[in-house]
């Protein structure tokens, strides 16, 4: 095995707890297993600290009302129990960690009517961000904008979020100084949460047409079929698709 592949193996062992416990890894005896385990646990806590602080920043800003800082879950038994299954960057692990935060902060019973919506929104951001990403453009052959444009396909992990409150109207003020908890208008709101191949998470308001396109774009339907299904003219559909491609929600498969 070449050195670069060997390095990948060490990185995987640190990131992927089930692999670290496997005979495949252990028989290689590349490093002291106790030291590797301790370092892997340190990395896991660091990895999810960064993500919780970033993606749950709004409920963090509300901690003086809820009395619960989201990152506190990392020092609780629930997170320790997850450690043997943690795979850094994996969507299932992100979901499991986000659920710990939702349970902990959501149980606070703070007088914030939109808290449940807010936690679902933050969970969606954290889960969408997870998954394999392109680190170098040379690694990203294919994807949006390259190759022959063919049939649109919703990118795996893209989420449509139905909320009871208009969160985008209140989020900026949560990060500003406030004395009374900022209020969110109560009106049904649909948000689209997507991630670029490089890992940038974006959120946009969605309407029924956008939601239909996201739900129908399966890489098999043609533009005409998609337009019919979404109730859009082809010209409007193309505009909508371009916006979705820019967000990272849709890519064009090349028909292979």
């Amino acid at each position, binding site marked *: 095995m070449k050195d*670069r592949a060997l390095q990948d193996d060490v*990185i995987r062992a*640190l990131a992927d707890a089930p692999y670290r416990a496997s005979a495949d890894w252990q028989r290689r005896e590349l490093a002291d297993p106790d030291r590797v385990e301790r370092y892997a646990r340190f990395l896991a806590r660091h990895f999810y600290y960064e993500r919780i602080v970033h993606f749950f920043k709004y409920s963090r800003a509300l901690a003086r009302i809820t009395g619960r800082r989201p990152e506190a879950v990392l020092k609780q038994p629930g997170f320790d129990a997850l450690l043997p299954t943690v795979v850094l960057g994996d969507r299932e692990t992100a979901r499991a960690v986000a659920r710990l935060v939702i349970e902990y902060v959501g149980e606070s019973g703070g007088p914030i009517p939109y808290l449940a919506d807010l936690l679902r929104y933050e969970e969606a951001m954290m889960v969408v961000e997870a998954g394999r990403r392109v680190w170098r453009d040379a690694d990203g052959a294919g994807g949006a904008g390259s190759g022959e444009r063919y049939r649109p396909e919703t990118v795996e992990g893209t989420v449509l979020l139905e909320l009871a409150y208009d969160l985008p109207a209140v989020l900026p003020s949560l990060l500003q100084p406030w004395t009374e908890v900022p209020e969110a208008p109560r009106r049904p709101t649909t948000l689209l949460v997507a991630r670029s191949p490089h890992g940038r998470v974006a959120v946009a308001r969605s309407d029924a047409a956008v939601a239909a396109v996201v739900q129908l774009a399966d890489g098999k339907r043609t533009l005409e079929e998609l337009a019919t299904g979404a109730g859009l003219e082809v010209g409007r559909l193309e505009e909508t698709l371009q916006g979705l491609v820019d967000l990272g929600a849709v890519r064009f498969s090349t028909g292979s």
Partner: protein
Amino acid sequence: MTQLMVGAFYNPHLGPELARAEGIDHLAMADPPAATDPWWPAIRERYTLLLHDYLGQLSEPLDERSIRRARSLAELYHSPWVAEHFQCLHTQDGTFNLNYVFPPLYTEEFLERFVRHARALQARLDQPLVMENIPGFFDVRASQMPEPVWLRRFFEATGVGFLLDLPHVWLEAHYHGVPPERWLAEFPLEHVVELHVAGVEHDDDLQGPWIAPAEPSDEMLAFAAHAASRCPKAKAVTFDAFSPSLTAEVLFRSVKRIRAAL
């Protein structure tokens, strides 16, 4: 040795305090300024800024987008040099990512990779490149030479500057059971341009000390003074703490104590 600049990292949550602070010569920038940061114009106006962002891992060549980003940030900051780390923290296929600095194997193959890609990056920058040492918590049996030997060969082959992170050296010495001064003496100190100084704290997972956004101890400050006196080309010493939990008091007191110790 020229007069050393003493500074810290720009922590945006401490923007109001840093915008009017005295006694700080420079700020290292770990992230680009947020568009909404009201303190950024004053910070940019007031300080020498050092580019210390994640540009990419030099086990692979940086792509054009990353190089353009590095050039753009260096220009924005008027940075006198551009820093990167001796790190290899994600797999080639992008599936696994540690999201934390992690050193490469110290082998001939990795040396050749880092030399080639650092030269390529340096050729595209208008500022000198400096590279920071990264601590290992455990040794990987596939490494072929000690880290200081690998680093010396890298710096001699590239002419790149050395950003010497002292807590990293201290931690490696600690976990190998050798005095930090003796371990430090192995490193190619004649290439050092900048030094990092910070505190260490006990970590429950590691069951020992690790880097933390904390004040340097008296022992660390004495180690910094010892190291700085052996780095004839050093230009700056930076309090290496970048965290939302860092307080203004810790930052200012640390910079003051570092300056007094040197």
